[in-house]
């Protein structure tokens, strides 16, 4: 029963690996296949392999895949261009041929009655596996340890990058900063902080220079590249707006009806503020 639920899911997910463009999606689909496989192991009387499949495959190997994917760039997609003409079609034809042969061959074999693992698993699956692993397969087990150490060393050697230039010390950085100032006139101090306004205070509003223009260096380059920087003069205009309203209050008789005041509203895009808001601001 479990098999007939999981098998279609696994085949669909595996086929998805062939068709999705992004590597991350392929990794997630592979995770589906592997977890389903773990459940099939549980059905097949292999509780130890069920745990190992989830811990080692889904937990370690797939996470390693995802880590490397993040290092390489998540957005890397496959190129659609074929380097060898007709390679894709050939591969599909070959795959279909191979698959049909394999499936037909397997389905024609009569496997006989299933012996089942009840007898072998009598004292528990894990003790039974341990008994075999540390007696008949003990040499293979020792060889495995050598393999794992070699793999760990190999990964370290491959991932290690020799530093070709000496690391820049703080003194070097300071000297470079002063050199930039002497040669290009680049400001040696820290960058200005973004603007703080009466109605907006966030990293996306540039500070204003004394002449009223925006200080470009006060907002992050990332925000500038995304085009989400707010216009500082527009914000400054809001300030002027508030100031005008306050001036209007003071000029008028406090007993007059607020509704009769000249219509004032914020800049387009900014929430329209009413005279009540302004009075609140004044009170504060």
């Amino acid at each position, binding site marked *: 029963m479990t*098999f007939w639920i999981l*098998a279609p899911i696994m*085949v669909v997910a*595996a*086929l998805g*690996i*062939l068709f999705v463009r992004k*590597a991350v999606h392929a*990794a997630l689909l592979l995770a589906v*296949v592997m977890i389903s496989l773990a459940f*099939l*192991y549980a059905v*097949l*009387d*292999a509780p130890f*392999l069920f745990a*190992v499949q989830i811990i*080692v*495959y889904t937990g370690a*190997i797939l996470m*390693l*895949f995802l880590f490397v*994917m993040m*290092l*390489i*760039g998540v957005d*890397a997609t*496959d190129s659609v261009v074929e*380097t060898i003409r007709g*390679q894709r079609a*050939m*591969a*599909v034809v*070959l*795959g279909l041929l191979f*698959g049909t042969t*394999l*499936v037909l061959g*397997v*389905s024609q074999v009569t*496997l006989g009655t*299933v*012996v089942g*693992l009840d*007898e072998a*698993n009598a004292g528990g699956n894990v003790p*039974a*596996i341990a008994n*075999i692993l540390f007696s008949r*397969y003990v040499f293979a087990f020792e060889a*495995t340890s050598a*393999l*794992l150490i070699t*793999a*760990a060393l*190999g*990964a370290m050697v*491959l*991932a290690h*990058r020799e530093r070709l230039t000496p690391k820049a010390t703080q003194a070097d950085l300071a000297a470079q900063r002063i050199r930039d100032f002497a040669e290009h006139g680049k400001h040696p101090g820290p960058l200005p902080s973004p603007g703080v306004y009466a109605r907006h205070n966030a990293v996306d509003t540039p500070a204003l220079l004394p002449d009223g223009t925006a200080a470009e260096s006060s907002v992050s380059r990332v925000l500038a590249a995304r085009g989400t920087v707010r216009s500082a003069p527009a914000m400054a205009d809001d300030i002027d707006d508030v100031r005008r309203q306050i001036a209007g209050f003071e000029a008028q008789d406090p007993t007059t009806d607020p509704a009769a005041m000249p219509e004032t509203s914020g800049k387009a895009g900014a929430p329209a503020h009413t005279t009540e808001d302004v009075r609140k601001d004044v009170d504060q």
Partner: protein
Amino acid sequence: MTQYVVLSAILFTIGCVGVLTRRNAIVVFMCVELMLNACNLAFVAFARQHGNLDGQITAFFVMVVAAAEVVIGLAIIMTIFRTRRSASVDDASLLKY
């Protein structure tokens, strides 16, 4: 029991086609993992068929070797990416000429 082996064959074939068609080295690697997993399924199924645990032991060793292989393979992919700024298998064709 036949259905497990058939499913294993189908998964192996899908992995095979993936290795042949995909260009991204990481996805190619994932397809290799899919093939290894398909073999493991067959091993575990046959272990139950024959009533001894040797198949499960073999599947366990396959997992260990796959883990080692993934570590080295991904390190190689990263090294290639560092020098060529690309994870596509088509770009690593220097040995061809």
